[in-house]
């Protein structure tokens, strides 16, 4: 199947809109007052969920591409990664602006007392350089170092999972699910990496 340049542009726009849909729904629910009794919590959790989901989708692209021999998938990895960063940014902004009301006193009081918030912040800090160096120009400039740097996303996924586990009171079903997904996606990479060695 050959897709023209124009065709890819259309597909990319469609994927972009699809990735943006959860955010549009969230904005709509906010305007319509459909976020339930604790709207800030709902916003915060739903944005966090989507950040984690996009991290997982981003992580899935390269193994899926390999196993199903669908090279075109890689075209969407940058966009998926940037959407993970976008949702993580909104997740953090809801915490800072709505939950803490931009109060420095509240930040200093609440954050050091919460190990899971510290881990969440660490996750975000890990994602910043990846988002900044996500352009083609940066990829060219950094060469081999770029790949090394972007392997930081493995660490970010693990710390996002830790962040989730640490905040739950007693029902671990959801963090266990995401931990399993991330575990499988990371484990697949270990196998794929060994293969070339055996051949050589």
């Amino acid at each position, binding site marked *: 199947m050959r897709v023209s340049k124009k065709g890819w542009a259309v597909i990319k726009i469609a994927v972009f809109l699809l990735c943006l849909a959860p955010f549009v729904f969230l904005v709509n629910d906010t305007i319509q007052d459909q976020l339930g009794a604790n709207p800030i919590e709902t916003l915060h959790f739903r944005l966090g969920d989507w950040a984690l989901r996009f991290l997982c989708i981003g992580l899935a692209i390269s193994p899926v591409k390999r196993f199903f021999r669908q090279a075109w998938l890689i075209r969407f990895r940058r966009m998926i990664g940037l959407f993970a960063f976008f949702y993580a940014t909104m997740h953090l902004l809801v915490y800072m602006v709505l939950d803490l009301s931009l109060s420095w006193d*509240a930040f200093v009081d609440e954050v050091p007392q*919460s190990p899971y918030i510290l881990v969440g912040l660490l996750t975000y800090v890990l994602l910043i350089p990846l988002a900044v160096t996500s352009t083609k120009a940066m990829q060219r400039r950094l060469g081999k170092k770029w790949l090394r740097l972007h392997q930081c996303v493995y660490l970010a996924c693990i710390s996002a999972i830790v962040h989730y586990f640490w905040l739950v009171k007693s029902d671990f079903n959801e963090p266990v699910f995401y931990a399993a997904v991330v575990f499988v996606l990371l484990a697949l990479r270990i196998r794929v990496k060994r293969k070339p060695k055996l051949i050589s």
Partner: protein
Amino acid sequence: MLFKDKKAIKSSEITDQKVFHDRRRIIKAAAGTALGSMMSPAAYALKKYQAIPVGPYSASLKVTDYEDVASYTNYYEFTTNKTDATVLAKGLKTNPWKVKVEGEAEKTGDFDLEDILKANPLEERIYRFRCVEAWSMVVPWIGFPLGKMLQQFKPTSKAKFVEFTTLHNPDIMIGQRTGSLNWPYIEGLRIDEAMNPLSFLATGMYDDELPNQNGAPLRLVVPWKYGFKSIKAIVKIRFSETMPATAWNKRAEGEYGFYANVNPEVAHPRWSQSRERVLGASIFTPKRNTEIFNGYGEQVASMYSGMDLKKYF
């Protein structure tokens, strides 16, 4: 073209959302009345406890919207999801209901809730409710003082604590099939805490019966303690000499103490307790500073004088 005519609808013809919801409410109310009149004369009145007098300690607080209180509950017997509990709890049958009284008291045995309600005149108490998860609301409960009710069973001098147990029925309470907590849910109070005039047993809220998800037909309300102390759907009350082993304390000893008094100075090991999100406020409203004993220090602080509240959290 099937949808050609869509454009023909003028914006002026589209029902305003508020009007739409008002209409829905009227239709719902009408349906309720019709259904009620078919069932029984008692069900005819839409609200069961409309003429209940307001009792003491009901500070003039802005009451949280009923919809928020009834759609945001921690009821792990059904689910750990606060909104799903509203639907899942519907299957619970709360009438007839018996409460077993046992332990260090002269009068023990099985009692019909109906008889307990006859012996204890109802009143309304408007209390703050502060969850350990750092959110709060203000609820107008309908019920009766716990202490007066407990006295009727004539506790002996050995009764140092009171233990409460929630119904255990995994057929209906599907959350009890999971290990989210040790079932059945158990809570407890020191006898002086139970006898404190603030301690309340609720059977209703907002002039009506308790919705199932809020703990029908009988729940504890201890407003100076974190919400998990206010046990729901009580089937057993036991007077005991020793401190009861409570559900959340068994789950995580270092995080949920037996006393669980609201205290902004004593953080949960994983989060601060110094502020709380007041439900029902706009999303731009800052959190409220949490008060010691949730603002009920005048009534309860003396019970803990000399106690290290950091140690006995």
